[in-house]
């Protein structure tokens, strides 16, 4: 039995790549991508519908295309050119409209939400590793984290009103990919990386391939619940910067939030508020339930993801010596993985 899948926010790389992967999947009949702007790269096999999810049009799309599975990937993690209002509008109001449309639709059987691990916040009073049932020590008061927390709340309400719809909530840590626009990738692409003086946060970075595979499985297999998605293993920021061979400049926390962010905005770059918190206190999430209940073991560790990021960066941006070291590490890891597979057989 096939599925008709709607993917929101297809102008973003993650959603476009996910839609492409679904189009190739034999278990999926039709993939419809929705966004206000068309995706930059071609999405062969995906039907693109130009629609704003903030408007009731999305309900018509659901009805016309016989959608039974909705993948909500439209949550934007950072404001485009500092326009927080429109980001919030798109994230919160868009999600509300989408959920309203889903609730009306008799066809919809599954909703996949991609939230973020930033809902856990980042503070000195946090436990080392967050499991899915833990909440933030201090509720996020602004930015992407707040949007995600609110959207998760609406989705919980939706799940209560439509118990027949299977809801999968994936809390993604910020992906690190040389090709994608994500807060973490943008931050680590800066030529001179600002860090918070006196703090060395723990980070987990998921590999884009693992994220896409998790999303694909969420659509194809039926597993309800909330799952953290992050790279196995923890790195500290100083270690990441060493691996990348990046120069960093430690700045006091107050400067980091104030003047530093103004300078970055002037340089057409940005470190969103929730990332700033993360860069001071760090965060670890437990992916045991992703492994055991959801049934997916991410293939790339955080360290391998950082190496892959380094190898994928355009030449000249980083030192060749570091790239060769990363390539050697990745090759070694591939070898051990192959050996493990062989010994399993």
């Amino acid at each position, binding site marked *: 039995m096939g599925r008709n899948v709607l993917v929101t926010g297809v102008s973003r790389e993650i959603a476009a790549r996910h839609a492409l992967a679904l189009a190739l999947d034999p278990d999926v009949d039709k993939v419809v991508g929705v966004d206000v702007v068309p995706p930059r790269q071609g999405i062969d096999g995906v039907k693109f519908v130009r629609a704003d999810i903030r408007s009731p049009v999305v309900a018509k799309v659901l009805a016309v295309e016989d959608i039974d599975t909705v993948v909500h990937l439209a949550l934007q993690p950072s404001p485009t050119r500092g326009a927080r209002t429109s980001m919030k509008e798109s994230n919160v109001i868009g999600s509300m409209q989408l959920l309203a449309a889903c609730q009306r639709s008799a066809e919809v059987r599954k909703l996949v939400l991609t939230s973020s691990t930033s809902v856990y916040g980042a503070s*000195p009073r946090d*436990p*080392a590793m967050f499991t899915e049932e833990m909440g933030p020590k201090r509720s996020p008061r602004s930015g992407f984290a707040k949007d995600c927390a609110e959207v998760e709340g609406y989705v919980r309400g939706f799940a209560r009103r439509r118990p027949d719809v299977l809801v999968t909530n994936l809390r993604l840590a910020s992906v690190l990919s040389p090709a994608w626009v994500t807060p973490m990738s943008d931050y680590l692409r800066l030529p001179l990386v600002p860090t918070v003086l*006196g703090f060395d946060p723990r980070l987990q970075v998921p590999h884009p391939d693992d994220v896409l595979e998790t999303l694909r499985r969420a659509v194809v297999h039926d597993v309800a619940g909330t799952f953290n998605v992050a790279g196995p293993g*923890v790195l500290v920021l100083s270690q990441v910067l060493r*691996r990348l061979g990046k120069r960093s400049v430690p700045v006091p926390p107050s400067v980091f939030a104030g003047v530093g962010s103004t300078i970055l905005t002037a340089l057409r770059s940005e470190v969103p508020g929730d990332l700033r918190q993360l860069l001071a206190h760090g965060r670890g999430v437990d992916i045991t339930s992703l492994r055991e209940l959801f049934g997916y073991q991410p293939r790339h560790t955080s360290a391998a993801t950082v190496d892959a990021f380094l190898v994928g960066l355009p030449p000249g941006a980083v030192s060749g010596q570091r790239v060769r070291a990363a390539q050697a590490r990745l090759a070694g890891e591939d070898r051990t993985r192959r050996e493990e597979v062989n010994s399993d057989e």
Partner: protein
Amino acid sequence: MSDADIIPLGARGEPGRGSRRSTPSAAARTLAPRAARPRREPARDATAPQAPPADPTSAAYPEPEAVTAPDTGRPGPPDGGVTPRGIPTEGLLRALAGAARQFMGEDWEARAAELMAFARRRLDGDYEVDDFGFDAELTSRFLMSALRPIAQSWFRLEVRGIENVPVDGGALVVSNHSGTIPVDGLMTMLAVHDYAGRHLRPLGADLVFAMPVLSELARRIGATLACGEDAERMLSGGELVGVWPEGFKGTGKAYSERYKLQRFGRGGFVAAAMRTGVPIIPCSIVGAEEIYPLIGNIPSLARLLGVPYVPITPFFPLLGPAGLIPLPSKWLIEFGAPIRTDAYPAGAADDPMLVFNVTDQVRETIQQTLYELLVRRDRVFF
């Protein structure tokens, strides 16, 4: 003043880059045949030194006169030998090797290579930290090496009952807390590392993780936040966890209150041990109370700085930074017999009365051991 006319530039015809008028260039001299050098001409032609350095490849060149040292009026080197200048390279190398052997032991070459590899891994970020941010390699190599001489020579640390610390598996070490600055935590970590060969993972107050630098260091050396989630995660992961339930009440108590245990938190550590079924190992530390005798506190300044207390000791802040040197008290650390928690029925951790009773039992054990150790210790200092 005829002398003024012949001041040579440079080295007065000594080997080196002379004025070129008197000496062939250094390059030309090295190219010249070696046998020509030591020869001295008893009767010298005044024009000989001014002979330009000939083409070394020409067959006519190896005439000794062309390359002999000019007469500079100084005594030349003794016949047949060159005066060694400076420290001979070989001797220098031998001295360095001797120093390395002295400093790092007989296998210094292997150790130096290892140290270089370690430094390279650090610079490349090619090392591992666990989920809590613990860097085992750095802790063993630097923190423990730095603490060891302090423990041995300054505090004359004596460790008793180390056999009570399990060789593997999770266990919770519960200890008294004192000394204004938590040096006792570090010393317990060292004792466990050196005598039991394990890493003690301390649980710290949230204040530690809010402070710059300190938070980074604390995670590096294996600490994590003292909360139920982290304690249970570590214990079920088979770690040896250290907890000081008195907290700031213990470290910040007056000198007159020394060795009187304060309230043992809310018993959260007992609940964590019960949930994970690991033994509790009472640990009594004598000596930490005397390192910074706390005789006063500045509560208003402490409130301003957001810290629990600002200590006044006989030497701090009177002597400034010198007042931060701990007094050399005699230290005794005793690990007591493990208190098992795996025999309690499931759900025992949710029975507050039972948790309080076990907490009191642990507290009493430590208090009694403290008294015994105090009797054993004949002198506080020297």
